[in-house]
């Protein structure tokens, strides 16, 4: 065989191989390949938010298991198995945004969010630009939803409600009613929005709000802020924080003898399993808001009731569910229902179906306003009792009465 035909043949083979490798044909319609629908999720599996990221992933994974056990998701008259493709974003917003682009390159148009406001806020504009659609189950800051995005929908209550619901619960339940409240806040966008929301509600309800103290995000040393508020003698200290700062506040307050008569309340940290595990008795009676509680009313075909969800998480992961598990499962549920309602995996059709979605679920009502926020779901308030979160507010969801004052026993 002479040289030219060999080169031509090898060139043709190469072309076929390259075309085969680079083909997106199989996955071009919204991440469908064969009988599998792939959803993309960049996740904080390492880095500073790895714990919260892991809890979020657990919720997503349980959703996949339940949806597939129920026969999968129907789109275009075809039953599809659900699959989530994970990529570790190392808790970094720029990586989380790049990974959304990578998913798009692979033809994956349906996205479940990473954990936390910075990551989600970085992902939302990329989703918008690429014509993807994202259900946000981990970024609560209101600022994400005031930028005109049309393709991001959050199942969770907004950040402004986190401390506001705690303040409302104190107003409704605490007797004697505390007078002076102070916020210790991390300086990231989410925590600042939490503080602003809580301050506005506290002012409206007639509490005296002392000047808020801010410290760098992810600090393990908040002693300066505690030292400053010690002399102001607040009745309650509310931490607008994530897990690591929340643990530091309680530990260092104990070291520094900062003992507000009403005790402590914090966002995000107390409902997580790590909070009582690292703090032991110091965690007792700390208040927190929660996106979900096992007493939430409502049910759905995938997860059943909140109690059933609680049992499923406990069985699968060996710990009681925290709200990060629940909001993740709710996000995945919303996306699945939208695909079913649209009867398509096309991103535009799924987006429209999400905008119209209005359903009850094991996580309460899921319905989005014009900004893409789920403002129809109330947050509950929990108190740590014997190392477990117990719902104390609102009254119709309460599992137990508030122990007040909440100073650790």
């Amino acid at each position, binding site marked *: 065989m002479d040289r030219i035909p060999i080169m031509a043949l090898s060139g043709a083979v190469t072309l076929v191989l390259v075309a085969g490798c680079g083909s997106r044909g199989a996955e071009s319609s919204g991440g469908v390949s064969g009988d599998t629908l792939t959803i993309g999720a960049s996740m904080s599996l390492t880095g500073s938010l790895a714990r919260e990221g892991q809890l979020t992933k657990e919720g997503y994974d349980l959703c996949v298991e339940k949806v597939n056990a129920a026969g999968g998701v129907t789109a275009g008259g075809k039953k599809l198995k659900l699959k989530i493709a994970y990529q570790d974003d190392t808790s970094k917003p720029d990586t989380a945004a790049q990974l959304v682009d990578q998913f798009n390159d692979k033809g994956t148009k349906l996205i479940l969010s990473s954990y936390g406001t910075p990551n989600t806020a970085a992902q939302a504009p990329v989703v918008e630009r690429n014509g993807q659609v994202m259900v946000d189950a981990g970024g609560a800051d209101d600022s994400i939803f005031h930028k005109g995005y049309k393709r991001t929908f959050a199942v969770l209550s907004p950040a402004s409600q986190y401390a506001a619901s705690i303040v409302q619960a104190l107003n409704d339940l605490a007797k004697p009613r505390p007078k002076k409240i102070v916020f210790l806040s991390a300086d990231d966008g989410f925590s600042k929005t939490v503080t602003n929301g809580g301050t506005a509600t506290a002012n409206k309800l007639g509490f005296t709000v002392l000047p808020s103290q801010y410290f760098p995000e992810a600090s393990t040393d908040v002693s300066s802020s505690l*030292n400053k508020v010690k002399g102001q003698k607040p009745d309650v200290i509310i931490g607008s924080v994530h897990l690591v700062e929340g643990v530091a506040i309680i530990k260092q307050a104990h070291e520094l003898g900062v003992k507000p008569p009403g005790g402590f309340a914090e966002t995000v940290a107390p409902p997580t399993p790590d909070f009582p595990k690292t703090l032991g008795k110091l965690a007792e009676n700390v208040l927190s808001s929660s996106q979900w509680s096992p007493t939430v009313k409502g049910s759905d075909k995938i997860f059943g009731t909140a109690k059933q969800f609680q049992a499923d998480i406990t069985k699968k992961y060996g710990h009681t569910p925290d709200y990060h598990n629940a909001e993740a499962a709710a996000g995945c549920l919303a996306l699945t229902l939208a695909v079913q309602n649209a009867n398509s995996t096309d991103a535009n059709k799924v987006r429209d179906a999400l905008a119209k979605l209005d359903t009850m679920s094991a996580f309460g009502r899921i319905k989005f306003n014009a900004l893409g926020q789920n403002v129809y779901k109330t947050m509950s308030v929990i108190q740590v009792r014997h190392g477990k979160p117990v719902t104390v507010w609102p009254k119709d969801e309460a599992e137990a009465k508030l122990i007040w004052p909440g100073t650790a026993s």
Partner: protein
Amino acid sequence: MTAFVQATVYGLLQGGLLALVAVGFSMVWGVMNVINIAQGAFVLLGAYIAWEVNATFGLDPFAAMFVSAAVLFVVGYLVQRLVINLVVNAPIYITLLLTFGLQLLLVQGMNIVFTADYRSIPTTYASGSVSIGAVEVPIGRLLSFGLAVVITLLLVLFVTRTRTGLSIMATGMDRGAARLMGIRARHVYALTFGLAIGLGGMAGAMIGTVGTFNPADAGYYTLLSFVIAILGGLGNMYGALLGGLLLGLVEAWGGQFLSGTWVNAIAFAVLVLVLIFRPSGLVGKAFYSFRLEV
């Protein structure tokens, strides 16, 4: 006034803990001219070992830290002999890259083995405090501060009074001349690295006792070590202690008198000032100062 005294006391105690984290890093940089980016990861490995020993055998973390130190001494010795020694003569960027890679491996390994859960070593006393007037002195931090001082003094005695210690310092000053005097540089380097990592392990046990830890904290402790080594200066065993105390105080006072969000900016501003006015650090020897010029 009470708030100022409280901030000062807390800052000093915190500084002692930071010094303990950094002393090994400073020693390795001074003696071997290796910037050990993996220092933070080794510190956390020490915390996990102490946590495991405490959880399995119920050993108090102040005893478990010796187990951490022993295990990490062996690990450090072997890492130096088998890995870092391969490139010890290469430009500093190569060792920088190598230890950076080691850090990635260690952090990911800890994520897999121990998960990303936040942990703390429980004791009945460490989070308590002693009241002196209106000032609270946290017991756990006081103990770790005492440990940092004792370790610094022992290190000074070690490098000035023992043959091994003198050989470490001699190798740090002039490896070629030390070799001509019959010192086995390879062994001395491995000993130095083992000692440094072992001390990092002790610091990890202390961090786990007074605070919380998870693998993601590795970068933070490496950065702290770097800042403290530069603040204190190289070539003097007191350097890390003084650098740590200065950083602790600056952070405490900065947080007290200005907004808490300025803490890091103030700490780095002090670092810049020290570099301008004392390029070799607070007590560093000028001979080593070229090593600050990475």
